[in-house]
């Protein structure tokens, strides 16, 4: 299929309304392959809805959403989009509580997702190595066989990031990764994300301005469902309208 755009993720004129309320209003922006972008904006700006649209949970009323140039995301459902290589980390960590850390990663590992394959699946040495590696990255090797439900909040966030990595996605959508974390953990998360960004495209939604500054990447500010300003963190912070709407006087 011929690529319609060179951007990895391309949104154009996306509009979503719930019973009259416009959560997304003619939203347009593009993410290039390999970049890391931070999306900021006040509550209700449409950040989570935007991610819902990209991952297939919500169908937009208007507009185009293209992935990798040729995939129309508005026509696919969650599982298909995940298979395409888009991974999402949720605001609240949603790991599988009654299963071990190891099993959580095993489930997330990029593999044949079909039911038939899962029936006869046996762990290959390659996959074992992969899981070992991931556990190292997210520093959960010692609790490998613990139930995910018994981890601390910060550990769960990391497990979820680990699961995201296991999917080997091309594009990561990370929703408020440092919510509820200590300063130390926040810094570690920033480093982790930068490391991940070496091979993958990352879009981070955050409120914590210190964290965004720590990341040091291009920032897109949303407001009432559309883009308010784009640029470096300094440029955006200096933008009058952003100050008025978001940062406050």
């Amino acid at each position, binding site marked *: 299929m011929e690529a319609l755009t060179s951007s990895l993720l391309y949104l154009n004129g996306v509009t979503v309304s719930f019973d009259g309320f416009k959560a997304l209003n003619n939203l347009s922006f593009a993410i290039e392959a390999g970049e890391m972008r931070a999306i900021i904006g006040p509550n209700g700006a449409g950040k989570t809805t935007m991610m819902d649209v990209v991952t297939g949970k919500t169908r937009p009323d208007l507009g185009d959403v293209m992935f990798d140039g040729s995939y129309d995301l508005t026509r696919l459902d969650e599982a298909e989009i995940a298979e395409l290589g888009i991974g999402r980390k949720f605001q609240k960590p949603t790991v599988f509580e009654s299963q071990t850390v190891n099993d959580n990663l095993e*489930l997330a590992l990029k593999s044949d997702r079909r039911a038939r394959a899962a029936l006869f699946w046996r762990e290959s040495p390659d996959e074992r190595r992969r899981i070992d590696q991931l556990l190292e990255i997210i520093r959960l090797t010692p609790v490998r066989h613990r139930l995910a439900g018994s981890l601390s909040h910060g550990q769960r966030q990391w497990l979820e990031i680990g699961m995201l990595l296991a999917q080997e996605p091309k594009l990561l959508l990370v929703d408020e990764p440092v919510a509820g974390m200590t300063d130390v953990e926040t810094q570690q998360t920033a480093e982790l994300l930068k490391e991940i960004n070496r091979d993958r495209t990352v879009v981070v939604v955050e409120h914590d301005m210190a964290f965004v500054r720590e990341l040091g990447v291009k920032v897109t500010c949303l407001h009432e469902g559309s883009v308010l300003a784009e640029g470096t963190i300094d440029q955006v912070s200096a933008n009058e309208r952003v100050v008025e709407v978001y940062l406050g006087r």
Partner: protein
Amino acid sequence: MTPHILIRSLDRGASAFLIAIAAIAILIPVLHLALPPTSPFHVPTYLISLFGKYACYALLALSIDLIWGFCGILSLGHGAFFALGGYAMGMYLMRQIGTRGVYADPILPDFMVFLNWKELPVYWYGFQYFPYAVLMVVLVPGALAFVFGWFAFRSRVTGVYLSIITQALTFALMLGFFRNNFGFGGNNGLTDFKDILGFNVQAESTRTALFSITCAALMLAFLLCRALITSKFGKVLIAIRDAEARARFLGYRVESYKLFVFTLSACMAGVAGALYVPQVGIINPSEFAPGNSIEAVIWVAVGGRGTLTGAVIGAVLVNYAKTFFTSGFLAPYWLFMLGALFVLVTLLLPRGIVGTMRHWNALRRDRASAAAEDGVREPLPAE
């Protein structure tokens, strides 16, 4: 699945369970056939049939636990699959009666002669052959479950909506099978069976054999479920149960997984029904009653859902209680007790008997291992 995959899935508890069932399957027939009736250890004939019935119920409970305990699908209509399997077997048994029926018609069962039907309806063809009947026992409930599940899971009907729809399904089937012109015996159902595969259905040896076969089927089903649950497939099921949306976002086609287990579970229930009918000697439309399906769910709840062994234990316990209470002076109070059982189990013992035991074990283990580890001991989450 190859045998060694099946065996591989067993842990200590599961192995113990299997051995126990095998022991019962051998011991009871021996006590029945080998000992004279005067011996205090002799197992009388009626108990053989009763135990056989319990075993069939245990198999049904297993099928419900598979989808409820491990995938979160609460089917309140599984009795329909049980009954369909039962009817398939019943149809075979009816065809075996031949000229020994009241109206002595070689082809038509008595109730058809009574209704003045001249020929056998098309859907009764083939039931004189045992292999065909066995195929139907598995195929009919399976096909119904497949079609139903395909529609339901694809449109993401979950939770209480799904449960209500399964109720409606079994209710509709009950209404249908009660009608005389449906061709399945109307409200009298199918009964007066003479023999199965040439053996007299009422003979002691046949009853004993049926009991052992049912136990064997139970063991096989248990092994199958264990293998399924411990495989990656089982882990995906549990993931779907705990956080369905998350599983979707990981790329799993949730509908396919649900459809597979639901159909498998229906086939198992059908087999349970087929084994049930020759042992109790009758199948009628009241087996489709919505209340029956809901009762089957409480067996699993009492024993402990998501444990497999719990389902079997729960089924036997509750049905034993039912037999005990409904045959004595406490009979009018049975419904009170059953109702109270529902309420108390959901309120006070949500994990069921086996589930609670496992929970305590796990707590003890975790406490021990956390004490051995450095670092802060984390509390277990509530389920």
